Structures are given as C-alpha cells and as structure tokens.
C-alpha cells in the first residue's frame, strides 16, 4: 500500500471509471431525468388541478419531494452496479489492486453521488425553467439557497448510495438486489412526506416518518425552495449529515467483509 496518496488514487480510479460508465449509459441519464419530470407533470399536474397545500399549487408543493425522490431512487439503485461488477468479474480486478476496501467503498460513493448530483442539477434547472414559464408559481431556485440545496442533496445522495452499496455487497444477483431495495425504497419514499405534508398522516405513522432520514431531506429542501418547513434547516442538515457519516462507516464494514 502506498499510504494516503495511494488510497486517494484508488478513490480517483474508481470515480474515473464510474464517470466513464455514466457518460456511456445514455439511457440511464435520460431515464433518471425523465421519470421525475413525469412524476411532476402527470402526478403533480393531475392531482394539482384539485388540490392546493399551504396556499401553493400541488405541483409546486411536491417539487422538493420529487427532487429528493430522484436522488433516493437513483442513489440506491446505484448499488446494483457492485452486483454487476461481481457478475462480470470486474470486481476481481479491483479487489486484487493494492487499495483498501474503504477506498473502494469511497470511490463508489463518490461515483454514485456524482451521478445523482448531475441529475439533481438538471432537475433544478428544469424546475427553475418551469417557474419562469409560470408553471410552478412560488418556487424559489436562486443563487441564494443554492449552496444549502446542493449540500442537502449531496448528503442525501451519500446516504442513499451507501445504503444501495451495502445491499449490493450482500447480493449475488441483480434480481435479488431489486427485490430487497424495493422493500426499502417505497417506505423511505412514502413516509418522507415527499408527496404530502407529514402532519396529515395518521398518528400511528408519525414515529416512522421521524426515523425516515429522507423526511429531513424533503423538509430541508422545502425550507429552501418553498420557504415552508417543519424543522429548522440546521436540524435537517445535522440529521442527514450524521446519517451519512454513520452509513459510510456501515458501508466500509460491509465492503470489508465482502467476498469475491
């Protein structure tokens, strides 16, 4: 091992590869942008004609939630690529290289988070464009809150990519991954309040929304983009930040025990 520099090079190497793959997989990029836009237009627009929340159109209200959703789905799904790496035996090339498992994990996290951040930026641009066109009145996507938005999105991506990679490190087949991750994805998504204010949920669900980390991503984004929220921004960021650090440790441990 080459010490810290060697580990950094290892992280860079894996990042380099993930970027190349992302760049080549055009269909993946298109799908990851198209599906949240469809949610916004069809789900948001369809319901939006009859519902308004806190004086906002429903479409405007769910924009932050859709943003968080797109990060959630694409980040967790990123974990399937470790299963794929094992399947195509590329994993052996990485495992036999002189880098530690934590560098390997970090390289993957950085790679997956980059994909999700690129996608988020495109969605933010689309949101800003729709607001200009008068389709999403009340949306604030400006330079002012940008740093906070990106920070929330990045921490969310890091957490969710870690979850995906942890699942992936245990799975032998992409089908198995799909099954397990969907068990996790939908509760995380629906309990986060992405589609409705969590205050309107039945009381017995309240504890579950509190332990869903995505709740704080949605709340933080809503705070910055819509100017309305349940919790303080620092509270949201603090929780997501803590969760992402914990998940990085958990993921490193999962990779440490991962076999060929």
């Amino acid at each position, binding site marked *: 091992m080459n010490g810290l520099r060697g580990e950094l090079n290892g992280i860079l190497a894996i990042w380099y590869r993930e970027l190349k793959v992302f760049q080549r997989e055009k269909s993946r990029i298109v799908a990851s942008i198209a599906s949240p836009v469809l949610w916004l237009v069809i789900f948001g627009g369809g319901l939006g004609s009859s519902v308004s929340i806190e004086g906002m159109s429903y479409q405007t209200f769910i924009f932050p939630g859709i943003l968080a959703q797109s990060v959630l789905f694409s980040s967790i799904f990123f974990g399937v690529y470790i299963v794929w790496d094992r399947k195509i*035996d590329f994993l052996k090339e990485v495992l036999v290289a002189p880098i530690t498992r934590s560098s390997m994990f970090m390289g993957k996290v950085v790679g997956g988070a980059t994909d999700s951040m690129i996608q988020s930026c495109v969605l933010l641009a689309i949101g800003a464009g729709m607001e200009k066109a008068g389709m999403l009145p009340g949306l604030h996507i400006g330079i002012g809150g940008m740093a906070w938005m990106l920070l929330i999105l990045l921490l969310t991506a890091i957490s969710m990519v870690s979850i995906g990679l942890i699942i992936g490190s245990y799975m032998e087949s992409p089908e198995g991954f799909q099954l397990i991750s969907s068990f996790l994805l939908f509760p995380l998504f629906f309990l986060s309040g992405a589609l409705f204010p969590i205050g309107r949920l039945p009381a017995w669900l309240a504890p579950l929304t509190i332990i869903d980390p995505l709740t704080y991503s949605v709340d933080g984004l809503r705070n910055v983009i819509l100017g309305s929220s349940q919790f303080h921004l620092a509270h949201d960021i603090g929780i997501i930040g803590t969760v992402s650090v914990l998940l990085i440790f958990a993921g490193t441990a999962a990779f440490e025990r991962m076999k060929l």
Partner: protein
Amino acid sequence: MPVIETSGLTKKYGEFLALDRLNLKVDEGEVLGLLGPNGAGKTTTLLMLTTLLKPTAGTARVNGFDIIKEPGKVRQSIGIVFQDPSSDDILTGYENLKLHGMLYSMPPALRERRIGEVLELVELSDRKDSRVRQYSGGMRRRLELARGLMHHPRILFLDEPTLGLDPQSREYIWGYIHNLARQEKVTVIITSHYMEEVDRLCTRLAIIDEGAVVALDTPANLKRVIGGDVVSLRLRRNRDGMFSHLDFVRKAETKGGMTYLTVVNASERLPEILRAAGMDAVSVEVHSPTLNDVFFHYTGKEIREGSGEGSWGERSITYSGKR
C-alpha cells in the same frame, strides 16, 4: 530467497478439500506451471496466493510478504490475469489500462508510457480506443495480459491463459508470455490443463490432481520418468502376457481398447513388437513421452483437453448490451 513459498497451504470449501497442504517454493525468474485437470485446485491456489481467498490452514509468503498478515503488500507486488475476463467491457482498452494504472498509483507520466509499451507488446495499439465489448476473446485476453504486466509486478500469475481461445490466438499468447518472461524479468506462474502449453512455456512443472501435487520437476525430467518411448497398439484380441517375453518392454498397460508399451528406442524395436502381436495388430503408433503420459503415469487418469469452464470469447457476446 524464493519469491513464493507456501507452507501447508490448504483450502476447504465446506467439507470439500480443494487444496491439501501445498508446499511449494518458486525461485525468481522461474516460469512455473501448475498442470492439472479441471477441478484440481489450480484456481483456488492462485486466488489464495493473490490474497483474494483466505486459506483454511497454512500460509504462504509472496515476495517476502505473508498472504494473511500483509495482503496489501502482496497485492502491490503481483499481477494476475484471471481465468475469466475481468476487464470492463463498456470502457475502451486504453481506459481499462488507465484505470489499472490509477489503482496501482502509477505517476501519470509513467502510466502513459507503460500503457504504450504494454499495448505494443500485445499488439493492440491500434485498437486501444475501441470498447472492449468489440474485442474478440483473444484480444481481450491480450489486453488483460498487458494490464497484468503494466505496473511492473515481480510475479505474474496467469490462470489458464489460453482457455477457450482459438489455436491462432493461443499461439499469440504463448509468444507474448515467452517474450515477457525474458524481457520483463518477471517470475511467472501459469495454471493450465493444456499439456502443450506448459511444456512449451514452463521451466518447471507441478502436476496437481485432486488438490495435491503428485510430481514436481522440469518438463524434460518428468518425461524421463516414463523411461522410454510410448508405443500405442490397437489389437484385435489382447492375450495375457503377449509381450512379457520382450525384455525391452518396461511396462505394458491396457486402457480403453488400446495397449500402451513403454519401450526404450521404440522405433528400432518395432519389428519385434509387431512379431509378438502377430495377426492381432490393427494399428501401431510410436511417440516420445508427453506430459499426458506423465500425468497418466502418476494419476492413472488422462487430462481431457479443452474441457475447461472458461468463458473467453463467447462471453463478450453473451453480456453485450445487457448492462
């Protein structure tokens, strides 16, 4: 000092003993072959020596580092070409090599120079910017050979380097291995179940069967053990003691309808052998001892060639576009 030294290296998969107390020393500059049929334990041995698999018992030192206690240092000093393709087929050949250089912390200038050199060695320079998905099985194997060499490992492990390749690609690969063993001053460990391959490339051979080394020597010495040429006879009828009166016949064995005699200077003795067989002889063939004979001598079995489960060639087609 040997560059590899294993002591009681053992691997069990559950109750199944895949490798049984291997003790082996390899000196610098050797091209050592591990010859054995499918399932003999060759890949298992390599995966342990390259730290990807934990031994059940025993250990080994590779380049002076213990495979259990210092796996990182072992990995830094070795290169390996796996039995199955392990490059990323969505990347180009060049990108796979660049990635490799980065994983091994090669300074960028050295990395680029080495990429050029190794691509030249395996004659892929003109295809370096094609996606690996478009490579043939042989080209892909050459790329991975280049990759295994790129970071100047002191030991290069090759797991069935020509499994599943067509004869022409196989010749190419043999040529490269032969050259690099001399040019790059690297110790090479080759596993194979192709007799011809290890016979041509290796300075020393370990014959492995069912997880144990049954013989270890130079190919020439191993063949000397047979003690003569091999005469294979097809007989209409096999009478007991048919050749027992011929004192130059060292050994007579019948297997699968063929009779095999071990004879010194067989070509000169052929008339006498045919006289003994008389009207029962259908055909006769004389050959110098091969490693196949050696393997048969030690294990009573034949290595069936070309029966590996490797997936070079067809694999790039199977997975293309399914990512």
